[in-house]
């Protein structure tokens, strides 16, 4: 546990001092929420949670996806393999650091939600259900980020992730645009769409088996691809 804490500390310090990582992920969701979200003709809590999901999606895609892809060939990572610590520590610390940044990048949105009252438009119990739905979707998209991280080439990681990140956010309705017209079927069966639907149901106090099943399917697929990618890296680059 001491090692996990040390690895989390070092990753957090490293990324907090990296404006190219930190600034877009903390500022973009808040800026979009203020410019687009607050004007959307939807319940205030639903909009707030959509943007929280957008912030979390960015963290998962960039910390895990780009972060792992860009550094897995790095000599520092090879050096870490020589240290007396199990690979489980490195993986666990990466996940915890991801969680830390997901919470951190959500804070500006929650602050705006407190100021504009969006937080108070839903009962505390349903708010907690919403948080639960947010975490479930975060796990699925964390697995997606890991899958990208272990398969994307280092050089193409940023543009490819951007190509996936924004369309996924749009299709999922995370900007508060729920009427996608002809793209609506994509919304339902996309990971971000199922996530948004699950959050929406949770805020309304309803269950949503379909969204859960879709997210479960994505978790299995992304988890499998991530583990496959991890083993590929272990067996080729680090073997």
């Amino acid at each position: 546990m001491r090692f996990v804490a040390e690895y989390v500390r070092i990753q957090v310090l490293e990324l907090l001092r990296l404006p190219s990582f930190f600034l877009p992920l903390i500022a973009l969701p808040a800026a979009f929420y203020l410019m687009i979200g607050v004007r959307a003709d939807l319940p205030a809590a639903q909009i707030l949670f959509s943007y929280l999901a957008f912030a979390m999606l960015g963290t998962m895609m960039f910390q895990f996806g780009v972060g792992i892809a860009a550094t897995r060939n790095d000599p520092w990572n090879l050096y870490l393999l020589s240290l007396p610590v199990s690979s489980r520590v490195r993986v666990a610390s990466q996940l915890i650091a991801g969680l830390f940044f997901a919470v951190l990048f959500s804070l500006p949105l929650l602050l705006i939600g407190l100021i504009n009252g969006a937080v108070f438009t839903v009962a505390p119990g349903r708010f907690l259900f919403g948080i639960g739905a947010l975490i479930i979707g975060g796990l699925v998209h964390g697995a997606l980020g890991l899958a990208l991280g272990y398969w994307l080439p280092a050089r193409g990681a940023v543009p490819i992730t951007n190509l996936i990140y924004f369309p996924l956010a749009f299709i999922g309705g995370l900007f508060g645009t729920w009427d996608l017209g002809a793209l609506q079927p994509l919304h339902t069966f996309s990971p971000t769409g199922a996530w948004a639907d699950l959050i929406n149901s949770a805020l309304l106090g309803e269950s949503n088996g379909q969204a859960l099943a879709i997210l479960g399917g994505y978790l299995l697929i992304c988890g499998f691809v991530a583990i496959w990618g991890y083993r590929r890296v272990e067996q080729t680059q680090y073997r």
Partner: protein
Amino acid sequence: MTAIVSWEDVSKNYPGKSALSGFTLSLGPGVHCLLGSNGAGKSTALNILTGVRQPTSGTATVLGRAVVRGGPQASLLSCVPQAVTFPPTLKVREVLRFISVHYPDPLDFAAVQDALSLQGILDKQCGGLSGGQLRRLGIAGSIICNAPVLIMDEPLAGLDIEGRAQVRSIILEQRSLGRCIIMASHDYAEIEATADTVTLVKDGRNILSEDIESVRQRLGLYQLSFSADAPLPQAVRALGAVEPMGAGRYRLVTEDPDTASRLLLDILEDPKLNVLQSSLEDAVSVILSEEKA
């Protein structure tokens, strides 16, 4: 010699290429240098010892414990990798602290910073360090671990004169503590100044492992350099292969420096004769070329 580390019949194959082939070597306390041309297998052998790479067959051990990546034997060794990079936004102090927490009995921070003149850069981010400063940080990271085995892949690359002297002094100090220091290097002058043994690696095999003096003496060669006007007299040319060095200087490698010197002094007027025992580099290049033949 008590073996601290050993490779036993270690092979490492990549698709279409064998990096190590039945590599066997045991090393005890002292400074040991792995020598060989680029791609000979030196770094692969070291990476297998640190657990970064896994052998295709054979075993590597540290104090009798088989090497497992991240296993308990890893706390018995510390390393300076060939390509040293550190996360650019971390500070030197943070990197050293991070490395040291992995080890049961790390050294005092102050001792390491003094030995490598790190005082001025402790609060600098690694991204702002020069190549030499990065190298010194890598070495500091290995020293602070206070581990019985120290692995250094090209430890002097990129260092200035002061840095080289510091690292040489650190290596010798570690030797005096009874540590096993293993270096891969191409810097023959530094090897001669610090190493106790050399191991020649060629095509992934250990072709010779002896103390430095034995390697040098087993050739028994001397290098004579002298001045002469061209064309060289027939008697001088008859001494063996005489190579021009430029500016009227010539070089002759011989097993019998006394006879050759007498003859040169008799025939040539003021030859400014210089006699040197063959260097480690000469010896290694001869051994490697004999092996090739």
